[in-house]
């Protein structure tokens, strides 16, 4: 009888890598989303152009190409990354580009009257953004960010293609070692689903907490 318990350990190790990738990728994506999203709203043409180029490029090319590029081509020009770094970089930049549009849309969804109230109270541009616009916009972004995070979780499975020992990769290893296909794949499908449920549950409760007191006022 195959030692499933031992191989389950291997898969759980993979799950840890997947979680790690998802978390680090999300952090990078979040940073890029705000940088590029605000960049698109900037008064300065150069910033707008940079942000637009970044967003269009990373939404335009496939995540696989980005991943393979980060892993195989960047070292050739002297930028050497571990598989984990390459994975986080590609996933974070890719999802960040999508999330940047979410940031832009959310900031624009905050009514003009809030901007005008800021001016009337003599708040500076940055002060108004920081204390008035972004806190409200963030609540608008949250649900879509949740979806983005789930997309990112799912995209981590492609890092198995650059030999990062994530969930999918470990399932492949277990499959090669045991000769059984059904069990490892069914197991990881369930694990991915549970992780996705955790994300959407987490985002929903965060949203509920942040929305407290705002009921009926937001547009």
């Amino acid at each position: 009888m195959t030692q499933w318990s031992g191989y389950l350990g291997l898969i759980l190790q993979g799950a840890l890598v997947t979680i790690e990738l998802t978390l680090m990728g999300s952090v990078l994506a979040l940073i890029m989303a705000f940088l590029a999203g605000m960049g698109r709203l900037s008064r300065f043409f150069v910033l707008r152009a940079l942000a637009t180029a970044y967003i269009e490029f990373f939404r335009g090319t496939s995540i696989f190409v980005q991943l393979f590029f980060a892993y195989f081509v960047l070292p050739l020009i002297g930028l050497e990354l571990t598989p984990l770094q390459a994975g986080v970089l590609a996933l974070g930049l890719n999802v960040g580009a999508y999330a940047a549009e979410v940031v832009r849309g959310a900031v624009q969804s905050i009514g003009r009257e809030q901007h005008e109230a800021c001016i009337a109270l003599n708040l500076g541009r940055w002060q108004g953004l920081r204390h008035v616009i972004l806190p409200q916009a963030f609540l608008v972004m949250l649900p879509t960010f949740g979806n983005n995070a789930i997309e990112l979780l799912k995209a981590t499975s492609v890092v198995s293609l650059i030999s990062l020992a994530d969930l999918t990769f470990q399932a492949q290893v277990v499959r090669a070692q045991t000769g059984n296909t059904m069990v490892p794949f069914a197991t990881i499908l369930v694990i991915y689903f549970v992780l996705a449920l955790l994300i959407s549950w987490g985002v929903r409760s965060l949203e509920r907490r942040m929305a407290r007191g705002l009921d009926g006022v937001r547009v």
Partner: protein
Amino acid sequence: MHLSAPIIKVDAISKSFGAFKVLDGLSMQVMPREKLALIGPSGSGKTTILRILMTLERIDGGYIQIDGEQLYHMERNGQLVPADERHLARMRQKIGMVFQLFNLFPHKSVIDNVTLAPMLTKGMPRPAAEKRAMELLDMVGMADKAKAMPAQLSGGQKQRVAIARALALQPKIMLFDEVTSALDPELVEEVLNVLWRLCAETDMTMLLVTHEMGFAHDFADRVLFFDRGKIVEEGKPDEIFRHPKQERTQGFLKKIIAAGHRV
């Protein structure tokens, strides 16, 4: 006539939205401590002139002086050049505005709405800002709701908080744009009462756009009647409301009275 210099001096300003000329060579002066009511039909440019004074819109031509200084221009090397953001920010300290739809910050509690600007723009420490905020909330009768969120307030309560928020910056000039017209009729009273107190207890210059003709009559030192971006008639409330000289003013007042407003 007046002994002191005007605090607001609007000199032949014009303003267009696209091809549509909203203000065309408008001039007016307001003396310190004066209470001014701006009335006139919808679309006549009343809101626009307040928004220009608050620097929410730019002007296309003309000059505005606030408290002896140019608003949209500044001197550089002896020449008048368009004002930069720093100049505007400095000028804005003198002016506060209350909006028709309150525009409270929905994610901040009542007291945080009031303390935010003093803390950020004047670097006031939190305890001092909160002490002052409580005084202002007390004045508008909202001290007991200091911890509430805006969503939990009625329209009239929101507007009173918005007034306190504008006052927190201690502006010399306050602009009120139809501050009661979004309110249910039974809530109008409480906001007008606050305006009365303000009028009695402070020496701010106040510009008030309103459709409450009765209130405008009792409250204002002077009434300006706007039509199509021009001041058609101005004078003491009694003159304007009882004996309007211009046909447009007469027509407007007749319509208003027909709709059941007290004058």
